[in-house]
């Protein structure tokens, strides 16, 4: 079991450029979550999918941020026109979303985005 895979591990963009972050959930997990981690704000929920369908995007900034899950094996988080305040570690997590007991979220190693 390779765990949740996130690529790239580090990304540096210039202000105004686009950044696409990739997440491959654990095989068989049908729920995928995106979080953002900064020193000031800590860990913040962004959005989540269940069985590829968007369930809750209440944490996503209304502009420039979008997420997709085109198939069960990967999800992407896209940030258009990146700004310095977007600099953060973006974490993806996955969990089983079926069955009666609570399904633990397993986190990936994160993508550290630096916007210059």
């Amino acid at each position: 079991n390779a765990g949740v895979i996130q690529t790239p591990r580090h990304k540096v963009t210039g202000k105004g450029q686009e950044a696409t972050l990739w997440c491959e959930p654990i095989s068989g997990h049908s729920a995928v979550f995106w979080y953002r981690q900064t020193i000031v704000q800590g860990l913040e929920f962004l959005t989540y999918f269940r069985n590829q369908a968007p369930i809750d995007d209440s944490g996503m900034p209304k502009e420039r941020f979008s997420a997709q899950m085109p198939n069960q094996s990967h999800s992407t988080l896209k940030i258009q026109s990146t700004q310095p305040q977007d600099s953060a570690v973006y974490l993806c997590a996955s969990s089983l979303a079926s069955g009666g007991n609570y399904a633990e979220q397993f986190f990936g190693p994160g993508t550290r985005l630096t916007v210059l």
Partner: protein
Amino acid sequence: GDSVTQTEGLVTLTKGLPVMLNCTYQTTYSPFLFWYVQHLNEAPKLLLKSSTDNKRTEHQGFYATLHKSSSSFHLQKSSVQLSDSALYFCALSEITGNTGKLIFGLGTTLQVQP
């Protein structure tokens, strides 16, 4: 809205001493509380979870009890080790089905000294 408060940003202790990291929460629904641990340059990992009032839950020497009357879920350990140095997050979730988004506190860094 829902929120989690961790009052200590940094806790520094000598090896072998007990520790308690504070966590309180606010929510309008039946809470499911978690403690996650994140070692340097690693992903957060689940340490403890509970949704049962007044029942102690334990794992790897750490323990916590959910007290709904005081909206608290403090993390404790009787004797800290150097390997316990890490960032600890308390989190709250509304479970729909068997999963849901996590609302995290700001985290407490635990530094254990020799």
